[in-house]
């Protein structure tokens, strides 16, 4: 089982969207994919937004990867945001108390609003329906 992660730059923020389950089988792939994104975002002091709208499940091992990423971002004063959790994943975040130690937003729009005005503007422009 492979974990797919699509990324895109939106102004000074990077949005990463993993797809699937992050469990003991795929957490290594998740960590390997996340590590360079964290390094780049932290170096640029830009925001990294994890769009979890297509993550069905995350285990303790996957949450640990998030913890490490958040710590590295915090050391460089760069924001890490997790957004658009599916209901099961939102419950896991609440039960594990990760919702208290990570910045979690309900929607991608909310997350971009916390990144920067430029990121929000470009995100909204990019997601607007064509005239």
């Amino acid at each position: 089982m492979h974990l797919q992660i699509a990324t895109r730059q939106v102004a000074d923020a990077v949005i990463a969207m993993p797809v699937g389950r992050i469990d003991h089988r795929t957490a290594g792939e998740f960590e390997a994919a996340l590590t360079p994104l964290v390094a780049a975002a932290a170096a640029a002091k830009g925001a990294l937004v994890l769009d979890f709208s297509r993550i069905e499940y995350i285990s303790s091992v996957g949450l640990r990867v998030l913890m490490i990423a958040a710590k590295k971002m915090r050391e460089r004063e760069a924001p890490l945001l997790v957004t658009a959790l599916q209901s099961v994943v939102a419950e896991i975040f609440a039960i594990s108390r990760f919702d208290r130690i990570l910045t979690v937003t309900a929607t991608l729009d909310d997350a971009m609003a916390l990144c920067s005005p430029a990121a929000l503007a470009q995100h909204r422009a990019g997601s607007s329906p064509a005239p």
Partner: protein
Amino acid sequence: MKAVRFWGTRGSLPVALTARDVREKILGVLRAARGRPLASEADVESVLTGLPFAAVGTYGGHSSCVQIDSGGPEFFVCDMGSGLRPFGQWATAQRKGIAQTFHIFMSHLHWDHIMGLPFFVPAFIAGNRVVIYGSHEGLEAALRRQQDKPSFPVDFSIFGAKLEFVHLEPGRTREVAGVAVTSMLQRHAGDSYGYRFEGQGKVVVYSTDSEHPLAQAEHAERFVRFFHGADLVIFDAMYSLADAISVKADWGHSSNIVGVELCQMAEVRHLCLFHHEPVFDDAAIDAVLAETRRLEEITRGAHPLHVSAAYDGMEIAL
């Protein structure tokens, strides 16, 4: 093995309800009773039915002590926390003039797991036999030191029972009064050991004061093998996962999330949350239990896992 009885379930430090805590519980029950018929005993009982456990009971405050009822005349106990005192009084009441034998298995030698021994009534009774098992080299010395002056007024010479110490080799199964016992090294400051008890077709695992490094797959596999097929796993779920791997990393404890995951992988029948955080009140432990049951529900595979939270006085039939 017939049952497991919990005499001490609190982690790190014994705690007690305060007068204010009791008053709050009474007020809550009176509010729930408002406007309801209370003429008969059944009416009164019915008020309590449906109220949360925290409203009508308490998880208790004794530190770790768990009895495994093997079905035989000899007693099996895990750890000698402050819960050993009420256990000892209960066991002595069963004595009826006949000498008793106690097999006590030590997870480790931290204070909260040994503090009950100086108050263990059966150890004072001539004719009794107390066999203390463990895998720490300094087991006997640690227990003697606890009763050395100036920490305690009387040393081991006060004990009338015959005290014996048995070193267990981790991973090597030993037959004790009809029960097969295997210990396993766990991650905790100064090391701790989990125990797997097998007898009469039942399996109980006692795994407290055990931290699980999530990055090490082989660690998880080792515990899955140790837990595999157990009827009951008594599991250190002291912290939330977030705390256990951040501010309380390397403190030697685990979480409800890891307990559910390991027990699901090991096809365990019943997970019992244990070694409760001493700062948690009854409502907080109720909440952890409800959340853990919900986690099991939303992650359930082919093997449903029953989840409970241990309280002082709780008995689980096997």
